[in-house]
């Protein structure tokens, strides 16, 4: 029997798997992609850590910076754990073979990111996520961890608020499988894919795990906080990492003038750029003064991307940029043990709201979070599994999902789900983007309510069972739509501006809202309230 079932094989899932296995558990990793196709490979800039406490930097500074960036919504205990443990986390990654860039003194090199005065971000040139993810994968192969690749999580099996396994769909055959497990870890990534065509995210970041947890009654939290990255290639939404500014790059307007301190937190920089874009002005990233050598050494991948996608050279040309949706701070609420509000269900990585980022995330903190809490989730899920002897499950959930899939195959469809996905992306970028206000949020909510109705009626034209991508795309879209409501309800209720959530009708922070928003499904109805930050 499986002790620990992990859904998702990005950085968070692979770390959890390694740790659960090390702790003596039978582990299975189920994922809708192959491990190295996960979005973690896209992280360029780096991973934060205080490697040596010196006059320049120490753990307390790191804690303060992270808490400050969270706009007082971070959980101090969890932040403290993350930061104080950061050196250990880095040392572990280093010890399993991640080839971090080095400095002259044989130490791990560090660079400066926004929202901090210290050089705290460790990196592997600008392939940090890629190298971490691949090294984790190599270790999983070494440890003979079992994978079910291209299997799609449909729903969790939850009985009396206790998880007992999941129902997954074999993408190659469209068959359903019930997987019983003593404990389950969700590591399915974030939901910025919702901003389709206005996001840096992979096509696969569609918030499936969060939607499944929500349907099963788990608490979601802070769903309204969505981070926009200031610098992505104009109209392509391809990221140029914060390291470009960290290494000394400028942001300039059409006249070549700098207009903001480049190392301010992301939300402020992104809004300043968006405003200019909105007024029809272009904004550029200027790296010319860094010189080709520095650029080649610190950002070879990004230099290549600019050549490939804009036909420009970083060392010679100004790079036109715009902000796009990048990271989602909200997710399944977890505590310091990576526990969710459902028994034996754990969550880690971007799908969780682990009390670290609050209203805004510091660059480089996500990679650290996925590894830190991946370890925590793996260990704790494994410990809990040891206390469970037998598992009895009914087939109610299986039957439900079976019916759902059959219906999708049977229905005649006259709605174009790909078009709906595009519409929602644009609607959210315009109405639930960097600047928000009540009437626009309500407009979006009305649209979503209508679409929810419509989409429940549609099926797919393509009736093949072998690798039916249309089936997966429709299911993903349904999950995104499921998450729209919590996002919008929380955004409407939060009548203040805080971090990534900026309301033009409530421009200031309000003490009344120094709280985490919560959304959960109870008896078929959404409950939406605020709770104190612990």
């Amino acid at each position, binding site marked *: 029997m499986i002790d620990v079932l992990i859904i998702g094989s990005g950085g968070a899932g692979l770390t959890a798997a390694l740790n659960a296995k090390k702790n003596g558990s039978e582990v299975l990793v189920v994922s809708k*992609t*192959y491990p*190295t*196709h*996960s*979005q973690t*490979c*896209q992280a360029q800039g780096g991973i934060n850590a205080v490697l040596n406490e010196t006059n320049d930097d120490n753990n307390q500074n790191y804690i303060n910076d992270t808490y400050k960036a969270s706009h007082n919504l971070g959980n101090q205990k969890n932040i403290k754990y993350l930061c104080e443990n950061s050196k250990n986390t880095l040392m572990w990654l280093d*010890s*399993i*073979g991640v*080839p*971090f*860039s*080095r*400095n*002259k003194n*044989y130490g791990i090199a560090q660079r400066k990111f926004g929202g901090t005065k210290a050089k705290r971000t460790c990196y*592997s*040139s600008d*392939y940090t996520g*890629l*190298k971490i993810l*691949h*090294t984790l994968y*190599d*270790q999983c*192969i*070494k440890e*003979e961890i079992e*994978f079910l*690749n291209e299997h799609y999580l449909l729903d969790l099996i939850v009985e009396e608020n206790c998880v007992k396994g999941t129902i997954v769909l074999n993408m*190659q055959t469209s068959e359903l499988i019930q997987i019983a497990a003593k404990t389950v870890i969700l590591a399915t990534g974030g939901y910025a894919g919702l901003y389709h065509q206005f996001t840096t995210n*992979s*096509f*696969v970041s569609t918030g499936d795990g969060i939607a499944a947890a929500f349907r099963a009654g788990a608490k979601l939290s802070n769903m309204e906080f969505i981070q926009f990255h200031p610098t992505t290639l104009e109209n392509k939404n*391809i*990221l140029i990492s914060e390291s470009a500014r960290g290494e000394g790059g400028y942001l300039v307007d059409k006249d070549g003038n700098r207009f903001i301190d480049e190392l301010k937190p992301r939300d402020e920089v992104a809004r300043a750029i968006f405003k200019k874009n909105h007024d029809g002005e272009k904004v550029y990233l200027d790296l010319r003064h860094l010189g080709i050598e520095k650029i080649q050494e610190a950002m070879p*991948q990004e230099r*290549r*991307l600019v*050549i*490939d*996608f804009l036909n420009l050279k970083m060392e010679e040309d100004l790079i036109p940029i715009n902000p796009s949706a990048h990271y989602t701070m909200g997710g399944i609420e977890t505590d310091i043990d990576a526990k969710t509000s459902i028994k034996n269900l754990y969550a880690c990585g971007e799908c969780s709201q682990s009390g670290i980022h609050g209203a805004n995330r510091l660059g480089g903190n996500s990679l650290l979070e996925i590894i830190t809490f991946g370890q925590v989730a793996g260990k704790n899920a494994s410990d809990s599994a040891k206390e469970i002897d037998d598992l009895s499950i009914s087939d109610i959930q299986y039957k439900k999902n079976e019916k759902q899939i059959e219906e999708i195959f049977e229905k005649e469809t006259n709605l174009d789900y*790909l*078009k709906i996905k595009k519409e929602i992306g644009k609607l959210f970028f315009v109405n639930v983007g960097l600047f928000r206000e009540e009437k626009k949020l309500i407009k979006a909510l009305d649209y979503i309510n209508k679409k929810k109705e419509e989409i429940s009626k549609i099926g797919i*034209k*393509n009736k*093949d*069972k*072998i*690798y*039916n*991508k*249309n089936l997966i795309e429709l299911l993903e879209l349904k999950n995104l739509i499921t998450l729209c409501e919590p996002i919008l309800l929380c955004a409407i209720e939060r009548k203040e501006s805080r971090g990534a959530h900026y309301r033009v009708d409530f421009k200031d922070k309000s003490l009344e809202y120094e709280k985490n928003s919560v959304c959960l499904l109870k008896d078929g109805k959404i409950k939406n309230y605020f709770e104190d930050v612990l």
Partner: protein
Amino acid sequence: MNIKIKRFNSEQDIDEIVDYDIKDNKTILESLIEVKIKYDESLAFRCGCRTGICGSCSLRVNGVEKLACKSKLNENDLIEPIKNTKVIKDLIVDLEHESKLLKKSNTFLNKLEETTISKEDEKLIDTQSNCILCQSCFSSCPIYEVNDKFLGPYALTRALRYVDDKKESHKVQTLEKIQDNGVWDCTLCGNCTMVCPQFIDPKTDIMNLRMKSVQNGFEDRSMQYMTGAGFAGGFDTGFDPTGGFNPNGF
């Protein structure tokens, strides 16, 4: 602009080349999405990052491996799935061999050597550790047609990445694993090097591994292969020189 896509549907047992009329000057990935929206939503292909880093979108254009998200098309180009593995549907192929090849090639850190790492040490494995496991090299390699047990270019490049890693204290363990169906089976044709979107040179990596193998006391089997049965001369590599060097950047 006209493009041709080789489509395969195992359920209906159809294997056909279909022509589509699309707008030009877009990436292959954007073109595939256009085909899906305009003509046939059932067209199946993998994609993720759309920035050339997740390695999921490799395919062949006129017989040359490319990443769909980073390459552009020309009139009448033929798009096909990658080779040397089973096609599941349209451009989607079976990738289950990946972890098996890596496992057999022992491509992971066996045991940590407590040591200091310099900038130069790190640079030594930088290129190899940029591999995105896109399988382009695997698809281009002619050996698989005669030996499906061959460990192949990306697995061997990854082996070198660990053999050259100063953190590894058990290098010989990895070298040992790549002797059979490994470094000596490669014909050094260079196809893999030509198609790698990450500018990795598996052919040279394999030559390096041969040298390190001999240095570590393993038998030099290159002569044996040159004169022995099976691989003697006149091997058709299937490589199309008109593909140009590294077709993946545009």
